[in-house]
């Protein structure tokens, strides 16, 4: 039996793999690589003279046929079009054959509408409730950001392979640009989400009787899960985006990952050298420093996740830093829902936060920040925000790629002053690439990536703890990062070495055990007569009919032998059932050669010679020209057409063996 794994995404933290396991096809996560949007110009909320006046790009020979599609800004070239996303591979495997999709966290489901709505997918998606709700918010925000600034132009010329080759990096090196797609619609989102079935931690879900899948808490985000995929004799653990740090979600369940045959490990921290605690300190210090100098702080972020922890840190910090009078704004079409959702998912939170609910208090302190008017949230910068807006202030808004969303406006507004600071906390995008279309930029840029997912030291401890037989991971984790090739500590170090995969690759997962579980019917079990052949080991023969349905195997009592007389119906019935021959008894035990020879002599055989062979003995009856081969698992009597003699000898052999 082989279990292939198809890798559809090259992004280790936004995975999309398909696992064929026990005749079930399971998609593991459905991540959407949004780094492709960095190649596009930002979508401003209001007309930006700076962006619209950027010069068109022309080839070295002066050919300017691409100048409508490509614009140049401070030495970088951008596509002037609606941003597009790099989808998971759709050609490697027929996605309509996927039976189920397991989602591990809300960041890893952003490609779901592309898969469920355009590939013929007819299966079920499993995810926890917070994952679905917050995933919906992220999708809603994304769709909103892009749809509210409709752009007429759509660039496609540059995607021509011959033309792409002529473009400067990074456009030249962008992969599979022909498959890049525009953002989905809200309708597609709703349809995709309707295919999701909600699950709870440790809930066992049977897939076609063959496989059981179970989500476990992964400690990374609200409702984030690792998955156990197991049959009776094989266990695959899928670890994707886990955290051992004490932040807001329920702690990671490590114990259930033990005894795995294969552990698929994805979603480790993207910044293994940055310690989240140090980064939070850095974030607070730089924020305070800017605000005290009268500057504004812009924090490009997702509407859920780390922002909850940042707000909690700020809640503790602002009074001590004398920032009580500084307004904090959270601008997102889903800001209100995100802040409210976080407070109602008590059962998915860490113990400390759960206990608060019983006091009763809101689990997150941002409720108090909102109550005291220190934190205000708005769906967009239009409307109430413009009348409340007061500087200096701190603004949390999306999108972290700086290509769409309200953040584009603030970058344009504040970029010219060195008093202001943009602090990057989301690790998904290179901050230098994100800033490229805003150059030249006077505002300060601070990079404090906060990624609470497992680092390599934690992985090493985890693997020691759960001891999987095999580890499978993206190839990026099997060698140090290219920029730090001397850091041997920044890779997975395990024995046997981890098996790696890359985008568009198929990997055969190694399973050693080849057993199936078979149930036995009670009446059949009652009829068994076990016989002890060794101390503690009993055997019984069973004659039954193996009944297989829905990947479940059951031994049923054999039908009674057909009655010799009977009506037509019966006869026909007896024709249907297999022939049950009268079975010979099974033999067990070993033949002690010396005693056997003595017995032969007693029965009148003489001139007996015994030879030792590699597997046992050969007893030669020279007079009778007969040979008896006695081996561990077989005995052969070779005589020359003397059936009588053979039967006599056989019966003598049988005397030494047990029958049942």
């Amino acid at each position: 039996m082989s279990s292939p794994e198809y890798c559809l995404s090259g992004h280790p933290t936004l995975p999309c793999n398909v696992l064929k396991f026990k005749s079930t096809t399971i998609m593991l996560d459905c991540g959407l690589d949004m780094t492709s949007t960095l190649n596009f110009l930002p979508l401003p909320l209001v007309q930006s003279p700076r962006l619209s006046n950027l010069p068109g790009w022309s080839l070295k020979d002066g050919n300017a046929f691409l100048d409508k599609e490509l614009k140049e800004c401070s030495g970088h070239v951008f596509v002037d079009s609606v941003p597009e996303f790099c989808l998971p591979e759709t050609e490697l495997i027929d996605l309509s054959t996927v039976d189920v999709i397991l989602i591990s966290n809300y960041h890893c489901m952003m490609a779901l509408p592309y898969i469920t709505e355009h590939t013929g997918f007819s299966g079920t998606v499993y995810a926890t409730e917070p994952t679905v709700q917050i995933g919906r918010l992220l999708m809603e925000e994304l769709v909103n950001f892009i749809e509210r600034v409709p752009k007429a132009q759509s660039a496609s010329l540059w995607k021509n392979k011959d033309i792409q080759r002529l473009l400067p990096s990074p456009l030249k090196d962008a992969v599979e640009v022909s498959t890049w797609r525009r953002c989905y619609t809200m309708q597609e989102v709703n349809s995709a989400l309707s295919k999701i079935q909600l699950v709870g931690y440790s809930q066992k879900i049977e897939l076609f009787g063959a496989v059981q899948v179970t989500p476990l808490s992964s400690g990374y985000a609200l409702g984030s899960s690792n998955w156990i995929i197991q049959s009776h004799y094989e266990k695959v653990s899928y670890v994707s985006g886990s955290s051992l740090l004490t932040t807001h979600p329920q702690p990671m369940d490590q114990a259930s990952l033990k005894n795995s045959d294969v552990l698929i490990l994805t979603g480790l921290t993207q910044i293994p050298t940055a310690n989240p605690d140090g980064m939070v300190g850095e974030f607070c210090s730089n924020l305070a420093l800017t605000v005290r100098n009268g500057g504004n702080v812009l924090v490009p972020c997702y509407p859920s996740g780390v922002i909850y922890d940042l707000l909690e840190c700020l809640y503790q910090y602002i009074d001590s830093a004398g920032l009580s009078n500084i307004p904090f704004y959270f601008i997102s079409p889903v800001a209100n829902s995100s802040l409210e959702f976080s407070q109602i998912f008590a059962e998915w939170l860490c113990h400390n936060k759960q206990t608060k609910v019983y006091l009763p208090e809101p689990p997150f302190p941002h409720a108090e920040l909102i109550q005291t008017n220190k934190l205000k949230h708005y769906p967009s910068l239009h409307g109430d925000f413009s009348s409340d807006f007061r500087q200096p202030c701190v603004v949390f808004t999306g999108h972290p790629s700086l290509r769409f969303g309200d953040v584009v406006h603030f970058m344009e507004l504040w970029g010219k002053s060195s008093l202001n600071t943009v602090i990057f906390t989301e690790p998904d995008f290179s901050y230098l690439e994100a800033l490229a279309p805003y150059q030249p930029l006077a505002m300060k840029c601070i990079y404090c990536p906060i990624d609470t997912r497992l680092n390599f030291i934690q992985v090493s401890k985890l693997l020691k703890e759960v001891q999987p037989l095999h580890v499978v991971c993206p190839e990026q984790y099997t060698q140090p990062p290219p920029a730090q090739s001397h850091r041997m500590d920044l890779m997975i170090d395990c024995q046997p070495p981890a098996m790696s995969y890359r985008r568009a690759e198929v990997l055969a997962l190694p399973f050693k055990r080849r057993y199936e579980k078979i149930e036995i019917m009670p009446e059949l079990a009652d009829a068994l007569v076990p016989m002890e052949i060794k101390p503690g080991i009993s055997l019984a023969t069973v004659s039954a009919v193996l009944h297989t349905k829905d990947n479940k195997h059951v031994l049923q009592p054999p039908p009674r032998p057909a009655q010799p007389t009977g009506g037509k119906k019966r006869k026909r019935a007896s024709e249907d059932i297999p022939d049950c021959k009268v079975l010979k008894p099974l033999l067990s035990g070993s033949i002690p050669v010396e005693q056997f020879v003595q017995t032969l002599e007693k029965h009148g055989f003489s001139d007996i010679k015994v030879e030792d062979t590699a597997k046992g003995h050969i007893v030669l009856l020279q007079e009778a020209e007969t040979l008896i081969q006695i081996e561990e698992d077989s005995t052969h009597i070779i005589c020359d057409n003397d059936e009588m003699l053979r039967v006599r000898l056989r019966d003598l052999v049988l005397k030494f063996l047990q029958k049942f």
Partner: protein
Amino acid sequence: MDPECSQLLPALCAVLADPRQPMADDTCLEKLLDWFKTITEAGSSLLLLQGNPCLVELLCHMLKPQDLSSRVLAFSLRLAGVLAAQEDCFQYLQQGELLPKLFGEAGPLGGAAWTSPTVRSGWIQGLRSLAQHPSALHFLADCGAVDTIFSLQEDSSLFVASAAGQLLVHILGLSMPGPAGGPPSLQAGDWPACAQKIVGHIEESLRATATPQITQALNVLTTTFGHCHDPWTQVLWVRLSPLVAGLLEKDPVPAAHSLVDLLLSVARSPGLSSSSCGLWETLARTLSHLSPTQAGPLALGILKLQDCPQALRAQAFAVLLQPLACVLKATAQDPGPSGVLDGIVGDSMTADMLLPSKAACVGLLCRTLAHLELLLPLPQRPCPWPQAPLLGAAVTLLQLCGGSARPTSDAGRHLCGLLLGCVRVQRAALDFLGTLSEGTGPRELVTQVFAVLLEYLRSPDSSPTVLKKAFQATFRWLLSSPKTPGCWDLDPHALLFLRDLLPVLQKRLCSPCWEVRDSGLEFLTQMTRHWGGQAGFRHALLASEVPKLTEQLLRDPESYVRASAVTAMGQLSSQGLCVPAAGPEHPGGQQSLLAELLHILSTDSEGFPRRAVMQVFTQWLRDSHADVAGDTEQFVAGVLQVASQDLDWEVRAQGLELALVFLEQTLGQPRSHCPCAVTPAVAAPVGPLAQALQPLCRVRLFEFAFRALFDCDRPVAQKSCDLLLFLRAKTASSGSLQESRSSPHVASVEAALQRWQAGDQAQPLGDLEPEVVLAVLRSLDLEGLQGALAESSDHVEKSPQSLLQDMLATVGVLGGNEADCY
């Protein structure tokens, strides 16, 4: 012994001898024993025994088979030892065969009580006290005590085992001839029997295969050579050194730690002529046989020796430097010879020796750095001192720990993996780097030093303790940066560094971690104290946000940070580096700082900021700070009034310090012993004494001092007493003032002071005239008060009589408490 105690003693002895009256608190027994020791050291033990027969009765009582507590038994053994330390008393006790019964087989030694480590320890300590004279030696030999002591060296209780070893050393010393006795023969037969026995035992142990036995022998020898420097010790070493050297033949060397201690003890012993007994050779062999971890302390010890062959010193230094040489070799960009610490790291010594495990590697590196740090300031440190390679090693270690090193070799990468983020090595390396600032280094390396320090100060991953050490090392390196002759300002390179440093400091002052804010402020204070007057520094500082941020930290929620901010602002203000605060609530910059500090002094709920304010004010007064000099009297009066009501005694004591500065300035004689005192701008008094005292009266300094004189906290009262005595001495020399002892005002002040002394400090003294003050000063028994204050607060309770009463009271013999017993 005073009669009161003699009277109480029989009852106490009866209590001790009564197993039904257990002594709950054995510290009482310790105190009792101390008291007996004091008595016997001052007088005759024999007379004591004869005067108090209950003591002998107590000792005799111990011999009866009964269920006595092990504490009391141990106490009795120790008491017997203390008493028998005097030979006549020993003989007296011997008459009754009391000592053999107590310390011999017939005593606890053979009984069930011996299972208690307390009793075994008491037995050893009793013998230790007793063994003071030749008769004692005979006694020990007769009762076979030495064999018991040998076995006690292996006792399960570490205290007992250690005490047994020390007792052996003591007996050996007692049995051998003193300094006047001339060198004893090497022949064992000529030595006293007891000494022969002990030395024989040591020899046997050194030949043993079991490490614990060897360790015991080595420890006994270490103590012997450490404590006794008589000529016989040299003979002993000559006799035992072959056996000790024999230990080096074994692999691994057993009891290496104890061996190192012994060799260093021998080398330090003035009684031994090291060159004549092959010690240097043994040390050299030991250095080469031990592992780097074991050899480090030996190398350090050798380098600290005053007279030691140059070759051995060089070898020791090479051993000490080995781990750092390995680090440099492993991280050298060029795979060939590292070019630094050449000759120190041989082919056999590779980084592998450092790498077996993270714990071993970190431990070895930290110890090495600590050893070198200890060595650096010593006059006998190796010369030439490899300053540049050591700087390079410290910088490399810090880069490895911080993740900025880019080693190319496998060993280097492995080392990087082991040390990355290791706070222990970071702390040790930063301390060492700071110490190295006392020397110089090539410009290129110094640039690297500043770069790595800046990297640490910048890094978000630096822990608060590492950061504090990074600040300290930075300050030391800035201090050591080359100075232009005749100019105390920072050199151009340091100024460039400062330009990079100040933004980092700014950020650190905004850290969410209070320890970091605190370290940042301390660093700022240090820098301002040194370079606050220098143009380059002033310019850079004023161009930054640092002064403004510091001012904001006066309102920090953490009291330690507020205190450090107060000190920093005081320093900045002294140097004219305070930025006038903008806004309506801070009119007039500097003046507002004085007001703000006064506000902190009167309202802050924590003591640290208030203490810091008092220190700043005292310094300002001493330096004649502009704000203070404007109206000094009003300033002092205001501060003293607030300080007098402070609940924290340190604030009140600091108030007295401020009062003293004012007093000295007013009377015109600054204390010469204070090195930082600046000649005050206040003119020395020219008029008569009364006139000179007037300002003191106006600021109500006397009321403050008199109130402090009866303060419930002793240090405050002592300080006030000192101040008033100083003032009285000053005024006594100029006796021009007419005394008014008999005036009714004086009487009322004296009456008020008496009430104050009694605890009623409600009534103020009102306005005092100089004449009245002087009269009151003379009438007060300040010397008596000073004497009483010098006594420790429990001097009444510490008397032996009190101790005996307490002990009796706890068991209820004195009665009175019986009603409470239920």
